[in-house]
């Protein structure tokens, strides 16, 4: 009791006031600490986003060079047949190079010509071919066509590689820069929206590389994951939560499910390699197998989330249903499961979001690979977005750095969309008791 005794000469009320102020101060300090922690986390996130955005956004535009291409019949269609077959196989490289040489005639010599040819991407040939095939009347005309520039010139235009310094250390020589500047002054250089990034598969040339192959691969793999993991996970959770007797065996199963949720993902990749590829002989690099491996990885997460939300449905619902004569199965399918569904869906989407970011298990089943074609079936070889990020981050060409950042942005967009749908589903169907 002496602890609470007021010192002589000070009233009890004053003393209490002082202590009260102290407690308020402690309270405020505690809150400021919390706010500071949140600000720090948000600040770091902001810095991360800002750097990725700053690096990735230049990918949205692509430097193009406008050339007055003479669609010479002598090159395109020497016999004058006008057949699409002949036009498709013509030498468009020659066409592009001739057009370049007309604007920059001073490039003679073998070396100069090669240096000049680098101004256009190897994709320019296909652009010319597509232009001719779309409009065969071009043959014999001269028309300004905008062609994709080579990666180094694109970087020069965007100011990401050096213009000065010793010539031998630069990607582009003084001559090449002078040619490009001359074209630029002539209005023959522009930056257009880079639609190829969203419509093409992987490529070794940065200016031709796109994310579509990886996006399609991701969607296939996640679809397989969802189709496998969701029904299996929900059924397992319903049985364990609603029907299984509580004994030692279910106890062991429960512990093991919790353990599985913590197993490093590479282990699932090894399992996939041993079982799906070596035993069942499924194809390597296929999103089908990727989805199956990711489903194994997501399954424990879904089971745990589903069990938690089944547990959260009040027993009175079950008792009422059973009381009016519903069978246990009817109770579950008509009442308990629908009420638990928002929670289960949230858990599933969180599990899927984790699967979306995985590369380690896919390494073992051959999905970490250069795959240029866009997959059209789940058994076609495909990579996924995080793998694409990983591969581009490792490429020596400088222009892949910005593509890496842009691919990260695409990945984050998919991730945010998935998490957003989780929030919306929960808000829409959530019931509180």
């Amino acid at each position, binding site marked *: 009791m002496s602890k609470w005794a007021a010192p002589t000469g000070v009233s009890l009320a004053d003393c209490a006031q002082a202590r009260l102020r102290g407690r308020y101060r402690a309270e405020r300090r505690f809150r400021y600490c919390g706010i500071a922690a949140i600000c720090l986390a948000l600040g770091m996130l902001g810095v991360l986003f800002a750097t990725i955005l700053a690096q990735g956004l230049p990918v949205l535009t692509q430097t193009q060079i406008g050339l007055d291409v003479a669609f010479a019949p002598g090159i395109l269609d020497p016999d004058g047949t006008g057949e699409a077959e002949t036009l498709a196989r013509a030498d468009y490289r020659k066409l592009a190079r001739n057009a370049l040489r007309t604007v920059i005639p001073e490039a003679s010599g073998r070396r100069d010509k*090669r240096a000049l040819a680098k101004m256009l991407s*190897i994709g320019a040939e*296909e652009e010319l071919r597509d232009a001719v095939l779309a409009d065969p009347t071009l043959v014999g005309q001269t028309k300004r066509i905008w062609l994709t520039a080579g990666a180094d010139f694109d970087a020069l235009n965007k100011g990401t*590689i*050096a213009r000065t*310094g010793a010539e*031998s*250390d*630069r*990607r582009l020589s003084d001559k090449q820069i002078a040619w490009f500047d001359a074209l630029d002054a002539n209005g023959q250089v522009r930056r257009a929206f880079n639609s190829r990034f969203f419509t093409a598969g992987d*490529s*070794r*040339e940065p200016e031709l590389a796109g994310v579509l192959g990886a996006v399609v691969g991701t969607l296939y793999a996640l*679809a*397989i994951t969802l*189709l*496998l993991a*969701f*029904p299996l996970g*929900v*059924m397992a959770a319903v049985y364990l939560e609603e029907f299984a007797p509580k004994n030692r065996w279910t106890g062991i199963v429960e512990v093991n499910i919790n353990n599985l949720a913590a197993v490093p993902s590479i282990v699932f990749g090894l399992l996939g390699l041993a079982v799906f*590829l070596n035993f069942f*002989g*499924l*194809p*390597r*690099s296929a999103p*089908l197998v990727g989805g199956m491996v990711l489903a194994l990885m997501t399954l424990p997460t879904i089971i745990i989330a589903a069990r938690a939300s089944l547990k959260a449905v009040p027993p009175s619902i079950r008792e009422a249903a059973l009381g009016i004569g519903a069978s246990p199965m009817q109770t579950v*399918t008509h009442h308990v499961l629908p009420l638990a569904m928002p929670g289960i869906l949230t858990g599933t989407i969180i599990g899927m979001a984790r699967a979306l970011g995985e590369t380690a298990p896919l390494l073992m089943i*051959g999905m*970490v*690979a*250069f*795959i*240029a*074609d866009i997959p059209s*079936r*789940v*058994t076609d*070889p495909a990579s996924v977005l995080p793998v694409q990020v990983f*591969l581009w*981050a*490792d*490429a*020596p*060409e*400088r222009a892949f*750095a910005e593509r890496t950042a842009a691919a990260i942005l695409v990945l984050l967009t998919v991730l945010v969309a998935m998490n957003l749908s989780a929030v919306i589903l929960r808000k829409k169907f959530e019931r509180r008791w």
Partner: protein
Amino acid sequence: MLAKIAGVAFLALVGASGVAEAREQIRIVGSSTVFPFATTVAERFGRKTRFKTPVVESTGTGGGLKLFCAGVGERYPDIANASRRIKQSEFETCKNNGVTVVEVKIGFDGIVLANAKSGPDLALTMRQIFQALAKQVPVAGKLVDNPYKQWRDIDPSLPAIKIEVLGPPPTSGTRDAFVELAMEGGAKTFEMLRALSKTDKAAFTKIAHTIREDNAFIPAGENENLLVKKLQGNPDAVGIFGFSFLDNNGDVIKGARVDGVAPTFENIAAGDYGVSRSLFFYVKKEHVGVIPGIADYIAEFTSEQAWDEEGYLSEKGLIPLSAEDRKSVAAGARSLAPLVLVSEQGP
């Protein structure tokens, strides 16, 4: 109900795709050093021909050859890239599994030591590299734990900065090649170690291959772009990596001379630069004609417009063989002459 629908949908998806159909595209596995070159050829091949673009996996040389040699059949890869020659043991595995190996040597890769543009110019010898990085070095005729802290401690002509080398981890083929070429080369300049290499090869290898562990050498992960960034941030540090990264980043880093030779395209191609290795790919002869396009892929890779001094692979940093070698290798590759590995123990 939901489960049933999902199950049916899944079966439909898998059924429609036809799991057990023949493979249409070439599958390539192997070295991460050869990966940029193989993918470049694969892409051009896919654009140029009616075949599908080959799928190239970067598994590392050892992992790739393991997959490659596992057997014949469409489950196994058709081609393996390698940043070193196939080993006798791997060759035996291949043979036992019925695989006939065709070797194609594609060129060279230099391993460079480089530092930031703002750092000092370095001119090293292999001896100095060994002294800077080995765990144990000979000092006054005796092997002692590496006493050198600064480059100047090794040789007064070197700058007075701390020895700090960022290099690839032990799992990397670049590291293997660096250790074999630069460290062994440096070790052999010491008379006592040279004598040892003749009497007790294993003991010599252990000394020459063991890199110090006192923070002078920092294993920096496989991502060489990150390494370039780290060098820019720390002008005193030196990095070890493949020539293509120096070639692509010549405006921010510079290569050290080794034994007086600068790591340039010309010097490596001419064989003057000491720390360079050969690159290969291996073709499974049994698959040629079964998996469509393999012969055409070999033809594309060994065409002059791909691999000569001015070919598109040289723009990616591949250092070509001499014109004569190219001719003979291309002829051998196109006739699919099987590799005969006499013995690993060379001269």
